[in-house]
């Protein structure tokens, strides 16, 4: 019970994080004509943070024991 409540809270926190990452004003911060490792900054930021978010979600929900 305790564990699943913790999972739920972690996921809720990740949801809020995602809402912040994928919206103005953080989005505007990276909305510049620049590149990082040859990839436009905005794309790198969005895909990068998206992947990190998915990994964190996987981590939060698949961790069996604390």
């Amino acid at each position, binding site marked *: 019970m305790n564990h699943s409540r913790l999972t739920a809270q972690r*996921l*809720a926190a*990740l949801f809020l994080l*995602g809402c912040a990452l*994928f919206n103005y004003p953080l989005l505007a911060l990276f909305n510049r*004509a620049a*590149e990082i490792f040859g990839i436009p900054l*905005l794309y790198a930021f969005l895909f990068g943070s998206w992947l990190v978010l998915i990994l964190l979600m996987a981590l939060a*929900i*698949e961790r069996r024991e604390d």
Partner: protein
Amino acid sequence: MLQQGWVIVLVSFAYLGVLFAIAYQADRRADSGRSLIAHPTVYALSLAVYCTTWTFYGSVGRAAATGIGFLPIYLGPTLMLALGWFVLHKIVRVAKANRITSIADFVASRYGKSQLLGGLVTVIAVVGVVPYIALQLKAVSSSFAILTGYPEIVMPARAGAAPLLQDSALYVAIILAAFTILFGTRHLDATERHEGMVAAIAFESVVKLVAFFAVGLYVTYGIYDGFGDIFDRAQEVPKLAKLMVTADTAASYGSWAALTFLSMLSVLLLPRQFQIAVVENVNEAHVRRAVWLFPLYLFLINIFVLPIAIGGLLHFQGGGVDADTFVLTLPMAHQQEALTLLVFIGGLSAATGMVIVETIALSTMVCNDLVMPVLLRWRALRLHERQDLSGLLLEIRRWAIAVILMLGYLYFRLAGEAYALVSIGLISFAAVAQFAPAVIGGLYWKGGTREGALAGLLGGFLVWCYTLLLPSFAKSGWLPEQFMTQGLFGVELLRPQQLFGLTGLDEISHCLFWSLFVNLAAYLGVSLLRAPDAREARQASLFVDAPRQRGELAGWRGGVRVADLLPMAGRFLGPERAREAFERHARSRGFAGLDALPADAELVHFAESLLAGAIGSASARVMVASVVQEEPLGLDEVMNILDEASQIRAYSREVEQKSRELERATAELREANERLRELDRMKDDFISTVTHELRTPLTSIRAFSEMLHEDPKIELAERSRFLGIIVGETERLSRLINQILDLAKLESGRAEWTSTEVDLAEVVRESAASMTQVFRDKGVTLDLDLPPGAVVVLADRDRLVQVVINLLSNAVKFAPAGRGRVAAAVAVDRGLAQVTVADNGPGIHASEHERIFEKFRQGGQDVLTDKPQGTGLGLPISRQIVEYFGGRLWVESEAGKGARFKFTLPLQDTR
């Protein structure tokens, strides 16, 4: 090879055949209990039915136009899946507990199983999803047309330009309809689950991902030299460099947020997503894997969108090639036959997956929530008497699938050309977003009512029609241009895409704002007009408190038999299937078989949810109610339902019960008090009457005594007359007192009775004899009519004499002097001895017949001058005596015709 149309057709059919084989295999495995889809990865993959040709072809088109603008459609679902642990998990649990079979069923069930609501959701879903289906038809038919041009790259002719019978989209629609009908409506499942379909959809998700990935890899690493190379080249072209950033304006960010929000809702509320994620879910634990695997799938299928878009824009710089087709035309342009074919198959799988699940979900809704409720109510069809309706249900679904696909084709002909793929899809997204307040609100808020949900859905849907659907027709020229530019009836404020002058938003954000604003306002506003009724409160508690619900079935009362429920379920599911389900239910509850199964609330709930699978919960409720004589919910049950949620309510119910008991006690006390007061008043009356009766003779005795005392010179004759009066009054006084005492004894039950066998004739004869002098004095004749033998009753002899003398003296009192006649008779009639005393006096008016038996009520007193001749207690006493011995005393008389007093007593058996 590819330019041969038949090759493509053959490959397409071969692919559909593979799908069919997978579905068939999965269904067989499911029947033998080794489910192919009972795996969280399969569940997550099947969720990817979200990715249609919109994703497969349309994303690249969108990216070519707006750069990153295609992405919110996939970020939204990622965010929603993060909430999936709460929202999706809860919906799955609620849906399983209530056997929900579609989103229409979900909404209808949540708001008190309202058929109207289910029908409305169905209509919105069908109308809203039609553009989405048109999108698939457009993508498949145009990809087919382009493919047949191989190796030339020729854009297909305008939709609607080709004659109807040469329009490949029509054939695509017909083939998809036929395939879906074969695929999805082979048999009827009570839970509306289609294991075969889910397996096929998961397979298709793999195919489309592989195909898209292959193109992406080929373009990125085959044509170009990796991501860096592509982006570098794009930077060199000013038009493409602009795609690397998005417009830095409030409107742009607002539209970004709106699309994210819209796709968040859609991944949950699209009928096919609901079908796959909720209805087809085999195990709620599968949601766990999907939370990250499904977003990962979305991530993977989007990685190569931009490289392909840029590659396409670089390659086809002259234009003339629709960016929506880059996925297909890039490999074509490089003569990659196999890859081109793989892409076509990938697109086909994206389209078929969507169309299959969507139309099956919609056909279930149309059948269960729209057609069946109407047919069941249509008495002339006599559906209630049909034995097996499962064939009819399948027939309705097949027609629904065909009609929906034809509607999609119609929309494609009417409006398909004015929009890119993604824009068509967004119209549908905005439509299903209208379900959000009713579904999500209903999941977390108990206050929503049926009217509120109806008002919200209807309002939102109408605004959607006005601001998005109608403009899509206007843009295709099917509605006058003025409608768009000048508003309805030329009223500028009513311009559909600048409603009330709201500008600065793109059409989707504009529609989303107004429709959800109206929707939410109506949902909340109307819901708050009244408190939920008993049924709504029960359903609300089932939905909102889902994780805490445990088995307990409250709120149902009624009389029902297993023998009623089973045939009814059999009519919809087929008799054998129903019987199996009932037996399984019996075993699961630990009973030996059907015969041992008690017809209780749980069974009714089971039957209802079983039926809900076949015909929807609202119809199922009507059917079960037709068999179960459901009693209305009593106050207690209602309280029960309301109380399930919280301890506080339970406590307040206890308080309420206590106060009810208190009220009842108070009422009893008040009544007792009233009775006491009445008795008190009667006692007062009695005393004042008695006092009055005693005073009358006393006054007269006193008056005459004083006259004798004060005037010694009174003549002897006068004196002796006075003394006579005094003696008479004294006698009357003592008689009165005796009778009062007698009556008091009788009434308090302290009288001494001796019951012996008494000859009634003898009693009358004796009483008459003792009265002879009285009769003679007044000159009244007395006739006796007595039977020869004894008439034996069980009574107190002296008391009977008292009664008869009382009746005789009354008779002689009222008989006219000199010519009066009194007759006393004893007779036997039907086991009763009857004594009659009749006179020829003035008689008694009918209104007085009962009153003369009241205490101190004297006959013949209506003439004021009449001196009272008796005590007014004789008849009441007589009646008490007769009734004590089990008899009756009454009078029969008419004014002017004499009176007949009669009493009866039960005869004593003299054997």
